[in-house]
């Protein structure tokens, strides 16, 4: 058999959970301002960052994400007044716990992006994709059955 010498450049799959009121609008602004962010960021719109159940994060990894980022309104600016404060506690514990289980801490992130921060959205995404790309493929929190189907 011929040895495969060709090396493919690794492009990570990123799942971004964005809240409807700030971050999703921020992504919109980034788009309409013609600011680029990598195409491998898959945005999932949620009503509030607080909607994100820890299971969502794990499921994203299962389905092939190499990194998961959660974006919400800045603390104090939540459309539902207090939602993102709960997110902050929940995700602090979850991220720390995932790292305790041996999952690389660079794969998870939480950022506050407002509707007016299109530039920040694009910068955050570019930075996160770079960070995960350096880390390589997610091998620790994957489902073999999903991988086979690819």
């Amino acid at each position, binding site marked *: 058999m011929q040895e495969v010498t060709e090396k493919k450049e690794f492009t990570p799959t990123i799942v971004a959970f964005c809240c409807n009121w700030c971050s999703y609008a921020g992504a919109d602004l980034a788009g309409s301002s013609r600011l680029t962010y990598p195409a491998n960021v898959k945005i999932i719109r949620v009503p509030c960052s607080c909607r994100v159940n820890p*299971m969502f994060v794990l499921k994203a990894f299962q389905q092939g994400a190499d990194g998961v980022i959660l974006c919400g309104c800045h603390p104090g600016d939540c459309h539902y007044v207090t939602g993102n404060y709960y997110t902050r506690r929940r995700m*602090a514990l979850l991220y720390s*716990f995932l790292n305790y*289980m041996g999952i690389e801490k660079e794969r998870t*992130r939480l950022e506050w992006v407002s509707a007016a921060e299109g530039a920040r959205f694009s910068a955050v995404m570019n930075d996160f994709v770079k960070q995960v790309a350096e880390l390589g493929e997610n091998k620790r*929190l994957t489902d073999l059955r999903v991988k086979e189907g690819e």
Partner: protein
Amino acid sequence: MKDVELKMLERAKALLQSGEVARVIGWKKGEFCYDPAPASFESVEEMENGFVYNWFCGANLSKYLIQMAKKEGKTAVFLKPCDTYSFNQLVKEHRINRENVYVIAVECLAKLDVEKMKAKGVSFITDVEVVDKDVKVTTAYGVETLYKPDVVLSKCAVCTKTHQVKDEEIILHERPEREVNRFEEVEKLEAMTEDERFAFWREQLSKCIRCNACRNVCPACSCVKCVFDNPASGIAAKANDDKFEEQLFHIIRAFHVSGRCTDCGECSRVCPQNIPLHLLNRKFIKDIDTLYGEYQAGEESEGKTPLTTYTEGDTEPNDVFNGEAK
């Protein structure tokens, strides 16, 4: 422990006879001295025939009250110090009506783990007597002496808990005060590298057979409909199909009880595969303590848990990893 058992029996019988309570929840004799099981007694005869309280009564009885306290009449229950935290937590979550329960606080002095004794080569145990730190085990082959700290349940090894709730108490021997660091094992894991931790948990969790014993015994896991029984969850199977399911099950199980886990250690006690599940829960407890201030679930029977409240200056999730968190 025999004197305590007699006192408990006497008290329970009196309560049943007077009609003050309709049933008593305690431990029932098993086939051997080391396998007593939780049971509900409704008559004096049942008590006399089956009741037992010995060095192997490690089971936490508070979860049974969810069902039992709904029945007609009062229910009396024997609670060890660690069980009272679970009881309080269940009262807080409105799973138990406090007025329907008569709590008898009993002394504990640490319970023994028969698996650890068997691992030390002691089998065919017929009787156990504990004098200070010596465990005198009578077996079919003769008498052997074990060092008590070596054979206590892992939850008892780091226990400093005291009774949080009681209507009366049966305490004949005072437990000596002591200082222990229950986070020692968690700290050891935290000091490892990511790769080492991953390898450790991979090895441990791969043993999981998804018997769901940890979920069923946990006093904090009291949802009527559990997420793991939902076919849409994708992991409702009886066995783990993939390593991901092992991880998912244990991460979600631990997360669902975070802020409510009283560290009663039942999960590790019942695990047939000896997975140190309490280390998962304890990580959450440790993080909550360092990030949001010391909190012991079950100390109060009202108020909020750390995950149902917030402050404006909470640590950002990205900063948790920077230095010593906060």
